[in-house]
């Protein structure tokens, strides 16, 4: 079980929120989407996904409901709450600020 680095761990929450901001999804779909968008670079294991989902649910950022999935089986569908949307905005802003600063530094040293 590979443990993602701290940066990625903190980012995992943001990624999930971002993915769910587009449309409600079940756990499987989220894991597929994560692999897709991050092109396996971030190496988010499925093992980390589910605890993260429960953590986010407990914090009131996402909400789970039982619905029919695309293959006609009942599954837990996660969607963003109002609180989660606010959190996503906060985190995105924060991320943009930090990554801009970091890439500035990295580029400076690279030059």
């Amino acid at each position, binding site marked *: *079980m590979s443990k993602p680095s701290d940066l990625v761990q903190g980012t995992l929450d943001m990624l999930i929120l971002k993915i769910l901001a587009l449309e409600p999804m*079940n*756990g*499987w779909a989220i*894991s597929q989407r994560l692999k897709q968008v991050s092109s396996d670079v971030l190496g988010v*294991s*499925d*093992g980390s996904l*589910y*605890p*993260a989902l*429960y*953590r986010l*649910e*407990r*914090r*009131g*950022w996402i909400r789970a409901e039982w619905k029919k999935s695309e293959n006609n*089986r009942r*599954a*837990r569908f996660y969607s963003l*709450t109002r*609180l989660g949307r606010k959190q996503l905005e906060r985190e995105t802003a924060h991320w943009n600020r930090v990554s801009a600063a970091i890439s500035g530094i990295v580029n400076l040293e690279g030059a």
Partner: protein
Amino acid sequence: MDLEEWFYSLPIRLRSFFRPNQVDQEMKGELREHLERQIAENIASGMSPHEARRSAMLSLGGITQIEQRCRDARGATLLQDLVQDLRYGFRQLCRSPGFSALAIVCLALGIGANTAVFGWLEGILFRPYPAVSHQERLLALSGIARGETDGTALSWPDFLDVRRNCTLCEDAFVSKITGSTLSIGDHAEVATGSIVSANYFDAIGVHPVLGRGFEPGEDVGSASHPVVVISYQLWRNRFKGDPEIVGKTQTLNNVPHTIIGVTPDGFYGTFVGWAMQFWVPASMEETFESEGYKLEDRGARWIESYVRLKPGASRVQAQQEVSALAARLENDYPATNRGRGIKLWPLWQTPFNNAHTLLPTLEVMVAVVAFVLLIACANVGNLLLVRSFVRRHEMSVRLAIGASRVRLVKQLLTEGFILAMLGTAAGFLMAYWCRHALVLLLPARSGVSMYLPGEMDGRVMALGAGICLIVTLIVGLVPAFQTRHLDVAGPLKAESSVVVGVRSKAWVRSGLVIFQVSLSFVLLVGAALLLESLHKIRNTSPGFSTTTVVTTHVSLVAGGYDAPRARIFQDELLDRLNRLPGIESAAFAAVTPLGYATFPSTPIAIDDYQPSPDEQPSVEYNQISPGYFSTLAIPLVSGREFTRTDDENAPLVAIVNRTMVARYWGSQDPVGSRLQVKGQWARVVGVAADTKYQSMREAAKPFFYVPLRQDFVRGPALNIRTQQPLQSLSAAVLREVHALDRNLALYEMITLQEQVNRSTSPQLVAVTLVSILGSLALLLAGVGLYGVLSYAVAQSTRELGLRMALGASSAKLLRLVISRGLRLTAAGVFFGTVAALALMKFLGKLLYNVSPHDPRVFGSALAIMVITTVSACLLPAWRASRTDPARVLRN
């Protein structure tokens, strides 16, 4: 987590809490679903089914761990862990029943003693009056003489002024204890009741179950409202629950009273210690009190009263108001009120009932039971330490297979909690059984039904629960502390390394034993000091004969005698008694010393004594018949005793005591000088030696006597000097009384020594309780010491065997173990002595003529301690001396 998050996540947390299984199933289902889809996808991409499953499992990373991480993330594990810990804890405790039973018994004793004492505090001092509403706002109201600390009685007019003028008081009411003969049919008995103000039942919020309470105005006038409210018990027992009781007539002290009501069951009146049986309005006071009509006399101080504060008002504010009023009264009525204040007391300091007498004892008991609890905790701590060594292996295994340290500590705390819970439950049960035990320690009196209940109400239970919590922490944290040093690998490598572990921690256990020995030594010293005081107080002469003098009352007031008839009767009875063989002398006195009745006091003036401007000398006195001093064997220092000729027609005379002479006449002989009593001048004809008057513990105080004939009371106490046993004497006296009047009765006859014993019963209570708890503490300390030594011996069998093999005799091994026990005792006694020297002064009021640092007392406490510890050492020492070297070495 901020409030909004908390609110948003509330549903899921509630669901996790109430439907843990369903939530868990859903979570597992979701993971299974994921796994299946991953397998399906893997198969679709060309893997074999077996490989597909393996790869899917790998990518998820251990299904059980994920499940646990999900539970953790959900925060649902808290409760599940708790349930698991509880179940596991119970199993652990059942596995070593001896240990568990011992620990629970120790805790039950500690917690039970505490709860019982809290219950008594609540039932006797803080909420003493069952069924009375809003006791938290009740205050006792009394008079107080300037410069004094004890409360005195209040006069009726002063009380009325307080009731009218105290704006912060919701209500004020009188409740003055009194007695009466109660004849129903041909059966006469003494009963205890209260003289109350008419607002009494409304003020305390008690409403009669039958009939009515008193009406406004029924406490006005002289003998104008002969009505009585009776208690439920009296109605049930003496009137057989007669439903038609209201309106019937009952004779009390020879005056027919109409029964107007019956109080509810569970109401015992407002006098700590005694259950009241009837209530009469203040207007009937003359029928029960001996000094005539007092409702308009500001100088007659006889009532005991209470106020209830308005909600939100404080005692300090109300006291300011009442003090201002007292100052006004002093100004308006200097003849009666100069130097007199009025004071409000919290109920637990009530100056005029058994709350007052039991307060010092109960205060000390709080400290004593805290000590017992600490000793019990130390014992249980010790037991748990032993077990934690035994369980090192188990703990290490659990750490090794992935339990977190936090989880282990939680587990140990849970076990402590189970022990504390069971101990608390048993303790509560014990306290509940003991709640009426105080009554057993107090001497019985005829006509009085003692009522000293412990009250197990919410506040007491809350305190008990608080103790339980503290005990849990102490008892659970001791072994938890040990896990700090737990090394995962160590004990797993070598099973037998337990012994080494014990050695390094032996000082903790020895420390606990020293702690126990010190605490129980303090209690021993306390018990010994109290015992010594009781012995002294009961063997100190109060200044008069006690064993050869008996006292009783003739029911003259109850018999309806007026003053002239009573005078004739008293003289004739004394003449008859003095003629009886076996009676050396007999005399009447208004008040018997050391009884519950208080002496009257009066402002005085003396010819050559100039009081300072704000001083109004006021001295207590007694009205006595001729022969009183010789009957009680009180020596006369100079002058003469009263004679028959000092009657109502003769010039007024008085006899003063030595302390009064010293204060007001100095070195002069007062005989022949004048003393003003109640505004009239009397001549001093004699000086008597000092005696104890109200209490064995009082300091010498000024006191004087006047002839009964010149200041008459109808119902004085009869004192008889005799060598005869009580039984035959009582019969003989009753014969003489009946020869004069067949309708009169004789009250309980007791020796003055019994009177002394009754007046010192609080000391007896203190001695008994402290002795019981002291022995308990000693026993617990002994068990603790025994435990430590037995364990040490069991663990060092190899060493002992070696010593023996190398030539040590068994006597030497015996000495070795005992000397170790004595070393621990010595250390404990050292700390105990230091603590006792500092603490014993707090026994203060309970000590009598004993220094709190009395070396003899410390010596005897030491002797008891040593005997106990040596006996605790004997068995382990004997076991050590029986070590078989051959067997030990073979193993």
